């Protein structure tokens, strides 16, 4: 059976690409520290020596739209083009291309459906920065086949938080039951407190540093009980109107497992939102 080589949860900040590649007067003062942190974070994936990446993210109203909105969707395609015109326009993100791992997609779809998750699927999916940001930060070579999984954290009504956790637990079991000798890294990106298009946006820090502090503690300690006890669909509006992206962190806590402490934790207090990086090695790290 396949091995879960690493579980990684991260914020996805679309400005990283531009900040890290800019030079001279265009280079923001925080870029060097940010690049150093990302370089160290990248090493946590590299040393896991993965063959395949399962990538959990959320379409930002690109291909998925309100006339036909899935809650959870698995990509099953031989290839994926990535990034969209408005992401090039606003963030300077490059067009990207990935190979798909269709056999694992099929296994996750079949097994997920049989486990009670009525997963949507897509055979032609153009993916966006929720998936390409971790590729840029963690695997810029973009040389590994992927299985993208999208969650709806964006367009209410959303599933309950526990459902994201349960899906994470199911993804972990499904990867571990994939009849393959491949090493799979499961990577998911979301947000801590975040406000977009509201009065608290683009402040000097994230809109709710206290929420961020607690959230990092929950994730780092694998404290699903506390996270599920304190977080509801209603409560997530309070730290910032885009904080439902935290549900993807909760999904990744489900992948990592209740009570599982992260092997690597780092944060960076940036304008606009706090960055947070976590890695677990369920089977120990390779030297």
């Amino acid at each position: 059976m396949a091995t879960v080589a690493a579980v990684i949860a991260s914020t996805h900040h679309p400005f990283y690409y531009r900040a890290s590649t800019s030079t001279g007067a265009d280079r923001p003062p925080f870029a060097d520290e940010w690049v150093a942190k990302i370089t160290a974070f990248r090493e946590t994936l590299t040393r896991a020596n993965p063959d395949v990446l399962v990538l959990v993210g959320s379409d930002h109203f690109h291909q998925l739209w309100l006339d036909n909105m899935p809650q959870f969707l698995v990509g099953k395609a031989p290839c994926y083009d990535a990034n969209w015109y408005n992401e090039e326009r606003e963030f300077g993100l490059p067009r990207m291309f990935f190979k798909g791992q269709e056999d694992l997609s099929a296994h996750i779809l079949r097994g997920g459906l049989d486990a009670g998750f009525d997963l949507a699927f897509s055979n032609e999916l153009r993916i966006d920065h929720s998936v390409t940001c971790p590729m840029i930060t963690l695997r810029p070579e973009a040389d590994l086949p992927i299985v993208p999984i999208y969650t709806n954290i964006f367009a209410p009504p959303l599933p309950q938080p526990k459902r994201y956790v349960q899906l994470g637990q199911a993804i972990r079991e499904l990867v571990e039951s994939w009849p393959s000798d491949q090493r799979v890294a499961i990577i998911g990106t979301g947000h801590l407190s975040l406000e977009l298009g509201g009065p608290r946006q683009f402040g000097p820090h994230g809109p709710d540093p206290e929420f961020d502090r607690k959230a990092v503690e929950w994730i780092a300690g694998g404290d699903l009980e506390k996270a599920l006890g304190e977080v509801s669909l209603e409560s997530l509006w309070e730290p910032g109107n885009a904080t439902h992206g935290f549900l993807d962190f909760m999904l990744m806590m489900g992948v990592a497992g209740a009570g599982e402490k992260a092997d690597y934790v780092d944060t960076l207090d940036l304008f606009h939102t706090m960055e947070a990086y976590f890695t677990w090695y369920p089977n120990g790290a390779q030297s």
Partner: protein
Amino acid sequence: MSKYLMNKFLYTVDRDPELVERYRSEPRALVEWWEAERANAILNVHSCECSTWLKFEDAEREALATHDYPALFELGAHPFLTLTLFIAMFERDYAEPLGFQLEYARRLSRFSMPYPDIAT
């Protein structure tokens, strides 16, 4: 209430560079054209097979036609869609990085929790 239709306007204009420029320079004309020609087009469906019932309420049409993003926020348009499109149109007019984004926040400062419902 037609939050869905406001969102559909923001979404379909945002993804088309030509429409972004037309909306920046001639907002009322673009909104009127869009409501007449595009509002009832089901995305990804053949052009003959349109909806027949979608139209803006007066306050929604006026908010869009006057680039009034605080009003769009109040009417429950999806804040991500509004922000993304308005950055595309107006960030270029500000010299400082994040100048427009901070002005945007300032203009919304009268809103406190709970914000207007964005469920569609």
